[in-house]
Each structure stands twice: as C-alpha cells, then as structure tokens.
C-alpha cells in the first residue's frame, strides 16, 4: 500500500514546474506564481562570480530534477553563468535575455531600446534595492569603514560615465518607498532620475508559457549553450 502510494505521488509531482531564481528576480515572479509552481531562491551575490553561479545552479538543478518535469530558470545569460547547465531528468527553460533587466522590462528588445537610448544607465528595482548590492549601498559601507572622502572618490570611479538612474516599475508592488530611495540616490550621486515602465509579459510567459522564440528550451540530457542566446548569428 505504501509503495503504491509513493509511486502514485511521484508521478503527480513529476508533472510540476520548479522555478530557480535569483533573489532579485523572484521578487517580480512571486506575485504571479501559480500555486502549483514551486520555487527555490539563490543568493544574489552569486552574480559577481559566474562560475560559482553556474555551480550553485547546477547543484540546485541536480537536487530537484528527478521531482519535476520542468525547471524554469529566473536568469538570463548573466555573464555566462547559465552556460553548460544541464538536467538529465527534466527540461530546462531559460528566457533568451542578457540579464534580469530584460526580464523586468518584459523583453530583450525593450532592454536593447533602453541601452541604445542611454547606455550609461544604472537600473534599480525593489529586489535590487532590497538585496543591497549596488554602488549606492556600497557607498554607505565605505563611509562607515573608510570615511566619506574615500567613499566619494571610489563611488565617482564606479559610476564614471553613468548618467541616469532608472527605477523600473513593474506594477507588482507599492512603489513609494523605492521611488523615494531611488530619487534620493540619484540626487546624491548627480544622476538623472527616471522611472521606466516595466512589464510582466516575460515573467508571465516564464511561469505559464508559451515558451516561444524568447526562450531557450533544453531537453533532458542537453546543455544550455552560448549560441542558444544568439540564434540568428
């Protein structure tokens, strides 16, 4: 009886989806997450070290792929952190985008449009502000540890050629606190503040499909390749 139950249970679980996402991206996914989709969150700090990010993602995939039919990655190319990822027992789905900015803006083309319009843009979202890993949060740490003069000097170098600070409004949360933070920050560092309308289009497609040309769908046993992100090149 118990063996039969276990077998029945596992066949039910196998049809389900799992999201593995960065701490910043999950903020935009959670309000839209269907109740039958599970999720795991990986540390935002991994984005600074693509090989560590790749290892953390592979470990998370390996730990879960026997229980799910599809694993959706809440990442983009992300400094190639997703290249080489594979799953033997399930399908991997990853949006065909450079990084999370395109996910917040709703498409790769929207990201490119913004990049062309003002390449020197520092983007913020609720998730980015809350994880506190930006030159602005680092400024506060530097002031505390080495004084304001040093912090000013290094932050000027870090933000060299940046002209705009853009808060992406995806409409998923009350914006007042984050708007206030972003406006104050822009003023403090001499950047032009802008609020950019985000979109939930890509997040909804990630969670519910269809996984069209904007996605890389990797069958069990195959790996995500760099060229998958540039199918027309």
């Amino acid at each position: 009886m118990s063996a039969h139950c276990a077998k029945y249970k596992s066949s039910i679980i196998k049809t389900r989806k799992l999201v593995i996402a960065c701490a910043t991206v999950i903020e935009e996914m959670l309000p839209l997450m269907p109740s039958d989709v599970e999720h795991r969150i990986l540390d935002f700090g991994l984005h600074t070290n693509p090989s560590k990010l790749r290892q953390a993602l592979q470990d998370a995939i390996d730990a879960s792929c026997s229980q799910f039919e599809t694993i959706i990655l809440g990442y983009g190319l992300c400094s190639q952190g997703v290249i080489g990822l594979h799953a033997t027992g399930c399908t991997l789905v990853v949006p065909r985008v450079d990084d999370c900015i395109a996910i917040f803006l709703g498409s790769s083309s929207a990201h490119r449009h913004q990049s062309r319009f003002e390449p020197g843009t520092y983007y913020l979202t609720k998730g980015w502000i809350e994880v506190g890993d930006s030159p602005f949060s680092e400024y506060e740490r530097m002031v505390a540890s080495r004084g304001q003069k040093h912090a000013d000097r290094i932050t000027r170098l870090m933000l060299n050629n940046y002209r705009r600070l853009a808060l992406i409004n995806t409409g998923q949360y009350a914006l007042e606190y984050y708007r206030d933070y972003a406006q104050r920050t822009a003023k403090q560092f001499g950047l032009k503040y802008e609020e950019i309308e985000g979109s939930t289009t890509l997040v909804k497609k990630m969670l519910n499909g269809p996984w069209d040309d904007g996605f890389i769908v990797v069958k069990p046993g195959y790996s995500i390749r760099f060229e998958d992100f540039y199918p027309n090149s």
Partner: protein
Amino acid sequence: MADKRSRKALIAHLSDLDETYVLNAVRQLLDEGQDPLDIIEDCEHAMRLVGERYEKREYYLSALIMAGEIFREVMMISQPSMEQRLSGNASGKILLGTVQGDIHDIGKDIAQLALRCYGFAVEDLGIDVPPQKFLEHVQNNPPDIIGLSGLVTVAYESMQETTRLLRGHNKPGQAAIPIIIGGSTLSEEICRFVGADFWVTDAMEGVRICQHIVQNINRP
C-alpha cells in the same frame, strides 16, 4: 632587480589596498634604479590576489575599483622611467575603444596606460564607440592592432558588428589587422561569436598579446 623583501611587501600592500604605502614604495624603488617592468609585474601579481579575495567575497566591488586605481597611479609614476628605457620608435600602434552600447572604461584605461608603458602608441576613441567610427579611424590611420573593450553583455553584439564591418572593408590581398577583445566577462566562446582574433580579461595579458603580434609583424 628589486630586493625580494621589498617586492613581496609591495605585492602584499597592494593586495591590502594600502595606497600610501604602495605609491611611496614605487617611488623609492624607481629612485633606487629598479626596473619599472618588475614593479608593474609585481602589481599585476597583487591585482590577481585582489581578484581572488573578491571571488571569495572577502572584498566588495569597491576594492576592485580601488586596486585598479592604485595600479593606474603606479603606471603613471612608472611611465617616465619606462619611456627612458624604451626610447626610440613606438613598439606598435593600437586603436582602442569601448564598443557602442557600453560606457565602462576602467579596464580600457588601465590597458591604455599599460600599453603606453610598454612603448605602444595608443589612439583611444573613448566609450560607446560606433562601429563606423572604428572603421573611419582604421582607414585614416591604420593601426597594427585594434582593441575592442566591453564589460556588459550588450557589448558582445557590438563587438561582433564592429569586427564584421572592419573585416568587410579589408582590402583584397592585405592582411587583416588583428582584433583583440578585452573585458572581464569575456571567454573563448564570445571571441568565436565576435569573430575576433584574441580575447583577454586583464590589461597585462593584452600587452603581452600585442607584443607577440608586433614581434611577428616585424619579423623579417
């Protein structure tokens, strides 16, 4: 050659981001007649240590920026001594720029200084440089090597577009000017995607490749 202990101390203090010590030590070593190339090699070693500490999350991004700034200052201080040693013709001509869509220039600026320290003449086109601008400069004043710099992912396609444009205007029968792409997130796969000849993730690696290329050009 500098005393082993003082060279070790220079490496340790740069990896600890002790700017005052490093700059004073470099001035003293140069005054004592030490080879500026040895000093730069030691700083390069220290920069690798800083990178390792960043990867271990012992350092934040600001430490990488600070280390880069100290390295830049060391090269500024060392440049006159380097020029004395390398008096005569330039080692080669390099056209350098951060590609369209990217505004990051810390790595490019360090590369530019390092190349000048090693006797190269560098024409730097700045940031967010359109492919057409690279082409115009190549046609007006052909360099020995073209360096395309970029940090963000959007730069990969710009590098590809620039490389294709430059290759498309190559004169028949004339050897193509070598293209090096540089940036901390680059890889062999990106180099293949771009169609460049070489890729580097740090400035000194770039200098060595440029030296190698120019030696081959000048070989009878």
